[in-house]
């Protein structure tokens, strides 16, 4: 498709801004998935992105680490603009962690190996240091005793906590969560959300696509509502849940909360 404009870094880049999307558009063939997305995320900010299925919310956060390519507009992550330059993409991915709906742990590696792989191969961390680092984060997600097991031997909730720890091992500046609890059995949702809440309390910049409205109320600085590839409204959770401005938001909240 058309090349992204201006590959020069954003002029006068504001160091307090983590992610900036402006007039970002994406198509799948003829299908217009994302329309003129304008969104700025400050460092330390916690965003919850919600909306009906097919609204483009997952696609949007997947554009941030270039798992999806946008065709028009700009995305600047941590002062670096996303272009076709592979080096820059890898640079951004090193600093942006992502947690997937289906965990996507590496099934042929032990939990410890899942956690040390990227620090060793991408950050060039010595093995011993990487292992200590991995154990530290496994303690944080409260499953250090599973280090020697394979992902297939863990419950869904444990696997998702490992996936969070795997991202944290890269010491990311930004964390993206793509429906992290949607594939979990109900009794396991809580343990994953608790991990995410503690992460939020430490000041991590987080973007979470989720339907967990309780989580949104508890930690979000801003809730972003999307529909048909557009950002319909964004507001502080108190405002968002009490006085949604838009009809479509009201309809969505009615469906999801009742």
């Amino acid at each position, binding site marked *: 498709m058309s090349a992204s404009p201006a590959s020069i870094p954003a002029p006068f880049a504001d160091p307090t801004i983590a992610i900036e999307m402006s007039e970002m558009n994406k198509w799948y063939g003829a299908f217009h998935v994302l329309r003129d997305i304008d969104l700025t995320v400050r460092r330390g900010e916690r965003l919850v992105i919600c909306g009906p299925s097919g609204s483009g919310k997952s696609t949007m956060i997947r554009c941030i680490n270039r*798992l999806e390519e946008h065709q028009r507009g700009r995305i600047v992550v941590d002062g670096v603009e996303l272009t076709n330059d592979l080096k820059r993409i890898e640079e951004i*991915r*090193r600093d942006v962690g992502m947690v*997937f709906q289906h965990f*996507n742990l*590496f099934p*042929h590696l032990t939990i410890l190996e899942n956690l040390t792989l990227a620090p060793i*191969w991408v950050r060039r961390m010595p093995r011993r240091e990487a292992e200590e680092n991995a154990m530290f984060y496994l303690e944080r997600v409260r499953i250090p005793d599973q280090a020697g097991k394979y992902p*297939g031997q863990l419950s869904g909730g444990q696997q998702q906590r490992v996936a969070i720890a795997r991202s944290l091992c890269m010491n990311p500046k930004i964390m993206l969560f793509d429906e992290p609890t949607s594939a979990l059995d109900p009794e396991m949702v809580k343990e994953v959300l608790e991990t995410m809440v503690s992460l939020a309390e430490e000041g991590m910049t987080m973007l979470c696509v989720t339907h967990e409205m309780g989580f949104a109320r508890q930690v979000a600085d801003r809730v972003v509502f999307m529909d048909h590839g557009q950002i319909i409204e964004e507001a502080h959770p108190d405002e968002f849940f009490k006085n949604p401005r838009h009809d479509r938001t009201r309809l969505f909240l009615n469906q999801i909360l009742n």
Partner: protein
Amino acid sequence: MKALSLPMPAEALPRRVRFTALLRLGKLLFGTPLNGLLTVLFGAMLVVTVPPMLRWLIIDAVLFDPDPDACREAVGACWSFVYAKSGQLLFGIYPLAERWRPAIVCLVILALLGWSVRPASWTARLLALWIATLAFIVWLMGGGFGLAEVPTASWGGLPVTLILTVVAIGIAFPVGILLALARRSTMPAVRIGAVVLIESVRGLPLLSILFVASIMMPLFLPEALLPDKFVRALVALTIFAAAYLAEVIRGGLQAISKGQYEAAAALGLPFWPMQYLIILPQAIRVVIPALANTVIVMIKNTSLVLVVGLFDLISSGKAALADPEWPSPAAETFLFIGAIFFALSFSFARFADFLERRGPVSH
């Protein structure tokens, strides 16, 4: 017989275990009329075939008598021929005085293969060890630097089979991986190149590739640039194996979910580390049975080099049979050679089985 097949009430069964086992066996063999009929039929076949086979194989066979006349008189197999000619069967037309050299080569290759199956020895050092060993083997077989020179045309038998198999598959495997990755590449030139190569090699019989390599290449390459006949056959076998392995590996690559690529990419892993660390280990594990199949076929395909004038095990066997002093005991010779091929293929099958079992618990 009939009494056994009668249904008996469970209480009436004698409690002695041995008899119960016998009863179960009887039920298994004669439980239904069809089973009974099949048991009788197969029993009769065994009675008819096994005793003559044993007579030929052992009882009437010449086992150790080195006199060719003993074989002429005997009704059974002539195993003494296999002993007497074992040197020629194993080493072909390699000069008699130098046979210790191919013998050492075979032992070295088999020992290193045995060493290589241990997961503990899978390090970069093993690869270096193999390369050094191959250089040593080439020197030992071909001579020079103090050893009498033996041209590849005089190489033969087991070392030829082993070298062709190990080198062809050893090189074809990484080449096959690259071809498989190339065929899935998003770069059109790379993808089309891989498709053309794989499909044209798969579309040709191995025999014709060997003929092209050994007969047609000399027609359009000057003598100075022409590689040795052995090397040409080796290249032909390698390309052939690589094309098949590539397709098997591609099948494995397709079994890996998109999520694995995304998770690896999201961690910042570049293309090659991603393939090496995440994708290939999983993809290859999925297709171990099919890979083993291809490798075993290739072990036996090496014998086709006889059509271009190289002496593998089978051609050595045929050459040995041509000795007019002996009655030519073809069946015995080919049983012996078959046993060697079986040992090689079966060992590999066991190794593949071991690889399949190790590793993580599957979902």
